[in-house]
């Protein structure tokens, strides 16, 4: 049992100048949310052709979420696996400033700035098998970002916008180990983007978006060959999207994006989507699209030799051939495998997804949705051994080899019991698999062991697919919220077993491997917000105290929390 008490002081000074006039959007707000992400233009959620989930700031606050994972893991269809980078904070002390100037009636400039600074002091000691390891030192994280945009409206049917976004994140870790040897880890990430987007209303039924931009990114890290040299990457892109509304019931969208990149192969991302309103109660959405995930800096630039574990090396593809070639000419390479000669500029990982959703809303108090989905992923980037040193130590790099799929369905339902009470539930069925592995199993070249430990052929029915994926996920939430600012909720989240380790002597995940047990996490939160900005909240996460330290390091035992919040908004009027 753990007790955590938090005190938050959030100041969000917003300066609004008198000459600011709100530019009216072409859409009418009638309690329906407006989203931009899905279509690059402001649209009512009920008019968006692709499935979109909106998590309101209120619901984030009401469950007492502190980190991005806290809120994402409560979304049906999303599974958070534990690992690096799962701790994006939702609230922290930040300086935040926004300005808006109207140059003319049709032209304005928006500038936003944000700066955060975080210092963490470490005094840790870990004892394992009689050995104690100390870690003393400090971590420092700074993060600033500046966004600006210049918007101009030529006419009611044509507007354009130039946007820039500049951000830099710097994290340094300086620790002293028990032997007195310093351990430093540095990451410095710079990201600049400049883009233009032009929106054109061709006629009442047809609108178009055309745009393009460039991204310049740079990373310095102590895990690359030199932490002094910034590894850079530039990406230029262009996109276009056409939206056609032949009648009041049908919306069709077609779009394409092209990405040209300095360090990996260019990529096309086409998509098509449709919304059909059968009647007031029923809607069908269908979307088919291809997206890509770019190789990351690690896969391109890592230059890492692990002296503590057999001196194996991992080289990113941007340098692997050169570095290994140099080692070879120095006579340090023992063997090079065939796949060393296949090393080339990494392709992005491509995913083609098809989503079909039926939404049924018999009345304002009830809604129901059913979604079928299928995603095919190809060019999966996997780490592979490409050779060995004379000493026998392995040399790894990255290749595009894998092919996988995920498919299943999702059901969601929500019922408003009264003005204050609501209940919602969701269920997801998921099947995943590696296509190459399935082919190998069908060929009879994958083996497993029987009860006596003797080898036998594996059957396709024993195959469980990709690790860390549960076949069943479900959730049930009760929510209370009244006009006086009092709120409360209780959420039960269920996840069925998932494969974690390959333990039966083949390299695929099957019934004979080791699984993490399915579990239910039960969370409770109660609070009250006052008009003057003061708020209190307390609750208990993981009330059933379910613990699986090995497989769920992000799920601490039963945790009580209390939050006091003071939110100050200053509005200058000159």
């Amino acid at each position, binding site marked *: 049992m753990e007790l955590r008490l938090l005190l938050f002081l959030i100041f969000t000074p917003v300066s609004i100048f008198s000459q600011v006039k709100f530019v009216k959007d072409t859409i009418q707000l009638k309690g329906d949310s407006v989203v931009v992400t899905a279509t690059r233009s402001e649209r009512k959620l009920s008019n968006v052709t692709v499935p979109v989930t909106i998590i309101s700031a209120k619901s984030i606050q009401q469950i007492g979420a502190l980190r991005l994972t806290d809120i994402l893991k409560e979304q049906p269809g999303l599974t958070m696996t534990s690992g690096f980078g799962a701790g994006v904070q939702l609230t922290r002390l930040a300086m935040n400033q926004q300005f808006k100037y109207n140059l003319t009636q049709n032209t304005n400039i928006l500038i936003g700035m944000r700066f955060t600074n975080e210092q963490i002091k470490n005094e840790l000691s870990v004892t394992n098998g009689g050995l104690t390891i100390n870690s003393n030192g400090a971590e420092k994280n700074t993060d600033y970002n500046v966004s600006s945009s210049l918007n101009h409206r030529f006419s009611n049917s044509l507007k354009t916008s130039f946007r820039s976004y500049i951000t830099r994140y710097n994290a340094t870790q300086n620790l002293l180990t028990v032997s007195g040897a310093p351990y430093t880890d540095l990451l410095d990430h710079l990201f600049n983007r400049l883009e233009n987007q032009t929106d054109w209303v061709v006629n009442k039924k047809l609108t178009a978006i055309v745009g393009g931009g460039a991204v310049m990114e740079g990373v310095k890290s102590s895990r690359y060959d030199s932490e002094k040299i910034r590894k850079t990457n530039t990406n230029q892109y262009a996109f276009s999207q056409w939206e056609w509304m032949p009648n009041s019931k049908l919306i069709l969208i077609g779009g394409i994006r092209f990405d040209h990149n300095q360090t990996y192969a260019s990529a096309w991302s086409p998509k098509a989507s449709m919304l059909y309103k059968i009647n007031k109660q029923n809607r069908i959405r269908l979307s088919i699209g291809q997206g890509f995930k770019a190789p990351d800096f690690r896969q391109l630039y890592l230059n890492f030799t692990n002296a503590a574990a057999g001196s194996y090396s991992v080289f990113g593809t941007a340098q692997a051939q050169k570095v290994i070639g140099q080692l070879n000419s120095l006579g340090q390479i023992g063997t090079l495998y065939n796949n060393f000669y296949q090393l080339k500029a990494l392709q992005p990982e491509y995913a083609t997804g098809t989503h079909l959703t039926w939404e049924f809303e018999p009345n304002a108090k009830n809604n129901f949705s059913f979604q079928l989905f299928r995603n095919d992923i190809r060019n999966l980037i996997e780490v592979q051994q490409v050779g060995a040193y004379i000493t026998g130590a392995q040399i790894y790099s990255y290749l595009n080899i894998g092919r996988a799929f995920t498919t299943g369905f999702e059901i969601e339902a929500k019922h408003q019991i009264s003005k204050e009470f609501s209940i919602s539930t969701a269920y997801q069925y998921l099947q995943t698999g590696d296509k190459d592995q399935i082919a190998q199993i069908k060929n009879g070249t994958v083996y497993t062991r029987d009860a*006596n*430990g*003797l080898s036998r052929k594996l059957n396709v029915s024993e195959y469980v697919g990709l690790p860390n994926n549960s076949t069943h996920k479900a959730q049930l939430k009760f929510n209370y919220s009244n006009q006086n600012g009092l709120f409360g909720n209780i959420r039960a989240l269920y996840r069925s077993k998932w494969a974690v380790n*390959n*333990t039966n*002597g*083949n390299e695929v995940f099957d019934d004979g491997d080791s699984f993490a047990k399915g579990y239910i996490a039960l969370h409770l939160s109660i609070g009250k917000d006052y008009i003057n900005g003061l708020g209190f909240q307390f609750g208990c996460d993981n009330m059933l105290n379910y613990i699986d330290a090995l497989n769920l390091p992000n799920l601490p035992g039963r945790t009580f929390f209390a939050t006091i919040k003071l939110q100050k908004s200053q509005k200058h009027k000159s």
Partner: protein
Amino acid sequence: MRQKLKPFSLLLILSSILFSCTKNETTVVLPVTAITVSNLPADTVLGVNAITGMPFSAGKYTFYSLERNAIVPNTDSASTQWDLAFAGSKILTNGGTSGKGLGGAFIYTGLFNDVKTISNDSVFKTDNAPGSFAVTFGSGKGWYVYDQLTSLITPLAGRVLVIRTASGKYAKVEIINYYKGGVTLPTTASESDKLSKQRYYTFRYAYQPNGSKTF
């Protein structure tokens, strides 16, 4: 030296031709039965170095005769008494740089019972230390995989070590387990158990005493 060797090797070749001739005509191939060897220690871990944190062992191989189904004393390591030698996850054959015998091996992917006859185009590798061994050394390359997260060694299913013994006869071996008692430890086992209970081989083998390549 050379002068002396020549007639001897000629004799060897001649005799093997002679043997194979007689064998083809007269020998009826008897089906060989599989023998299971359990808990064969292979340079087991003695402790952990307090300063480096690294486990240590005596550094000695366990020599095994497939023909006699018995451990061969270390004093006979420089003989043709043994066919396989085990230390940690390393397995040596009695030939090449490892021994005086005719030993060699290759790894067959498939099931133990499916190895009925060793085809004549099969290539037996011999040990060539330190870089190359007949029973390939290393995770995923020979008979086992090592999981860095759980630090457990699991014998790969569907791998058969096809062995040429010190005396030039043939055997097939399937490694079943690497832990004491013949059961791989659970991933949650303590680090000290993972160290002290590893390096105990359970394997089954079939040895063909008549020198033929058929089991």
